[in-house]
Each structure stands twice: as C-alpha cells, then as structure tokens.
C-alpha cells in the first residue's frame, strides 16, 4: 500500500548524488543548467531544495551520542547495527522479537522529501527513503483497544557517552496516537538520498513525523508497543512544562525557550535569514486529526 501520499516535493526535487555531495557544486550545477535554458523543477523550487548530505549528516540531535550538534556524527559510527532486532509487543496479533530483515525486509520503500523542523527553531528538507508506519502496523496486526503506539531507542552505554552521563532518562521513548501513527505521512525511514541511514540519523530504522518537532521522530528503534494509554515520552518526562505529548509544529504556540514563529533553514550560512514557520510544518492535511482540540493546551 505504498505511494498513497504525494506532496509538492517530488522525485524531481531529489538532487543527483554527484550534486548533493557538495552544495557549492549543486549551485554551480544549477546555474549551468539555467544558462543552458533547461531550468528544471529543482531550480524553480529553491526554497524546497533538499539539504546536502553533509548538512543532514553532520548537524544532529541524538543525545545518546552527546549534546553537541557534531557529537552524533563523531560518536555514532562506533555503534554496530548488524543483527538489529526489534521487539513488537502490546496489543498486537503477532508480538515477538524480530530480526529487522524479517520485520521490514518485504516493505516497499519509497522516497519522501519532507520538511524537518526542530523545536530549536531550525529546519532542513530531507529526502527520506522508507515506508509508511501504517503498513508495518498492518503487518503486525493492531488489536482492538490499542490507542497509542510507543517507541523505544536502543541503549548502548559502551558507545553512547550521553547515556553514560545520563543527559536524559534513557532509553529514549516516544509515542503517537494511533490515528497519527496510521496517517499516510508518518514514515519509517531506513535511508536518506537512497543511501542507508547513517547511524547519527537513526540507523537502521527511525520514525519520521514531518508535522511534529523533530524530537518526536525517534531514532534507532528497538521496540514498538501498541498500548491503550498515552505512553510516556522522554522530553515530556524531562520537562513537562516545555514539551507536550503532541508537539505539533505550531508557530502560534511559543516554547518557553524558543519562539516558534520563525525558523532558520540550515545551509544559509552566517547571514541566513529567518523564515516563517508554517502551521503543522506546512502539512495541513493533518489538521483533521486535531479537530476540536485546544492546541495551546495540548501542545
């Protein structure tokens, strides 16, 4: 059931590999194309042009590997993801601990170019490869009574300095309401730019929920639980007044630390201008999920 959803970011926006390796080459390449009079869709949509491989893989929040933005790229490669297993439990027909290949090996992956908005008020555009979480949930069989999906990140203190320093109460946990989890936008990503997901980006499999702040998109998943009650989430546990369960991108609800009205696209350099943040990060199609809810209360 892949390809249920398309958006304004399409395959044409995916930059050829020779170009995404280096943005300066990309810009040079584009102007060459323009000069030749074949200006394609990439040039036309420069504001939605995906970030470069370097930007996506060297500027990360993955506190298990350290709190600096460069720490994950430095420390995460030490994590060995071979033989990865994922436990599926709770209200499911087929619970168990699966080898990753057995769980998702037959999923048809597709490319999704999504805006990615961090709660720290920066953003990127990322060409993910993955499949819809709904397809995985269909495979494991969601039982009546399940209202939420809970996720858990791997904990490997030997390669995770942030875990040893107890930056947060690890393992990192996150959750979605079942209808959010089933939404066709909600992705399980296994790659970027057609390459396997680098460890710092959440290898071998991570969640991507493009209308929520980035910390909801939990990385390096080892457990998926179908549950009846709203599950605990890590940042909410650390600071409930600052991080709610929903954490939808919302320019009208300020976070105590950062105004959420604007954001800075990574890649603009030292003099990058801020741009307006869009409600639901521009994914208006999810608005129906929250009808009748006071989003200043359920932030």
């Amino acid at each position, binding site marked *: 059931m892949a390809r249920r959803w398309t958006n304004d970011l399409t395959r044409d926006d995916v930059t050829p590999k020779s170009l995404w390796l280096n943005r300066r080459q990309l810009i040079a390449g584009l102007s060459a194309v323009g000069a030749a009079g074949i200006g394609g869709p990439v040039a036309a949509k420069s504001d939605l042009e995906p970030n*470069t491989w*370097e*930007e996506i893989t*060297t*500027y990360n929040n993955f*506190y298990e590997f350290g*709190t600096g*933005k*460069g720490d994950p790229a430095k420390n995460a490669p030490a994590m060995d993801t071979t033989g990865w297993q994922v436990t599926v439990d709770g209200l499911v027909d087929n619970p168990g601990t699966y080898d990753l290949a057995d769980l998702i090996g037959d999923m048809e992956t597709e490319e999704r170019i999504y805006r990615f908005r961090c709660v720290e008020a*920066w953003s990127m555009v990322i060409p993910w490869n993955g499949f819809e979480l709904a397809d995985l949930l269909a495979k494991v069989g969601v039982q009546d009574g399940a209202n939420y999906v809970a996720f858990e990140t791997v904990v490997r203190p030997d390669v995770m300095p942030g875990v040893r*320093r*107890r*930056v*947060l109460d690890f393992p990192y946990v996150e959750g979605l309401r079942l209808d959010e989890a089933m939404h066709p936008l909600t992705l399980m990503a296994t790659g970027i730019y057609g390459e396997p997901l680098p460890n710092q980006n959440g290898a071998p499999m991570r969640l991507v929920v493009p209308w929520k702040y980035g910390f909801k998109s939990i990385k390096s998943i080892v457990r998926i639980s179908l549950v009846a009650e709203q599950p605990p989430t890590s940042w909410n546990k*650390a*600071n409930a007044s600052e991080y709610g369960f929903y954490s939808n991108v919302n320019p009208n609800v*300020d976070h*105590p*630390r*950062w*105004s959420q*009205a*604007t954001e*800075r696209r*990574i*890649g603009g*350099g*030292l*003099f*990058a*201008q*801020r741009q307006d943040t869009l409600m639901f990060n521009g994914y208006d199609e999810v608005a129906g999920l929250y009808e009748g809810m006071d989003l200043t209360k359920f932030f």
Partner: protein
Amino acid sequence: MAVVDRINAAVRRVPAWPIYPVCALWLAWVFYRGATGGLGVEPIEALEHEYGAMALKVLVVGLAISPLRRHAGLNLVKFRRALGVSAFVLVLAHLAVWAVLDVQSLDRIWADIVKRPYVTVGMAAFLLLLPLALTSNDRAVRWLGPKWRRLHKLTYPAAVLAGVHFLWLAKGFQLEPLIWLAVISALLVLRFRPGRGARPRAAPTQG
C-alpha cells in the same frame, strides 16, 4: 626565592596590553571561520556558542586573580583590567551575534529578553558588566576613589548570573554548566574569606 616570587618577578616583565589585540584577532578569526564553513553547517549558533563560551572562560580567569593573590601570593593583578575588558568585549560580540545574526528583529529581541528566562539572566549579566567596562580606565578609578572597588564587586553577581544563564539554557542534565557554577562559587567563597598571612588591604588596583 620561592616559586611564587619567581613567577611574580617574571610576570613583571610581561606586558598586559597584548591581551587586547589577541582578543580582537580571536574574535575576527572565529568569525572568519564561521563565514567560510569552518564552524560547520550552522555557523550562527556555532559562533554564538564560541563567543559565549570564551566570554565565560575569560570572565572566570579574571575572577580568579584576586583569590590567587590573596591565597597563593601570586600577583597577576596587572592583567586584570585587560582580562575584564576583553571578557566584556566577548560578551558584547556574543550579544551582537544573538541580536543581529540569530534573532534578527527588534520585536523578537525584546520578546526573547522578556520571555526567555535564560536570555533575561544573560542580559542582566551583561547590564552588570556594562558600568564596569565603562569605568575600566585610570580616570574613572581616580574619579570614583573607594567607590570604584565597591562598584567592581559587581563582577561577582555578573559571573554568577552568567553561570546560571549557561545552566538554564542547557537541555537535559549537563555537567559542564554545573562545573562552571561550582568554580564561580568557589572563587566567590575564596574572595570573601580572609586571606592567609597579614596582607594589608592593597590600594585600589587598576582594572
């Protein structure tokens, strides 16, 4: 000759003025790296952090000078003014990066100062340092007389606020700001504990 006296004698031959150009060159160098990709893919935040972290370091070094003399007999007082002024310039650069490159608009600057506690605290630290920087010259020292010493005790609350600023902006549990706050507190305690030996109260020293 005791080690301390030998150091003191050596220090007497080292001028304090090079601290100013070193500070200015460092600021320019880090800015240049930010502008040319040397600070990673998000240079604005990186520059803000580089300047803030260095400001804190220089502030704390400056703060250590009194206790070092009082409790260890080490006399580095001649560097204190240059260090204090440099710390202020670094904070000013940190503030400028925040206002001009990061936040970018006056209403957002004001909103952040009022609404974000760690910015409010940082701003308070800056405001406490402002009169100190303005009176870091011989004329002000003479003009203020004994009041100058009292005024410049503001360095201590400013440093505490800077430490709180760092602690408050850190997310999750992080050790580094706690260590800085501990160091600042220790220096404060040492500063206000009577020193060993009967060192007479020195005349108001410059800086």
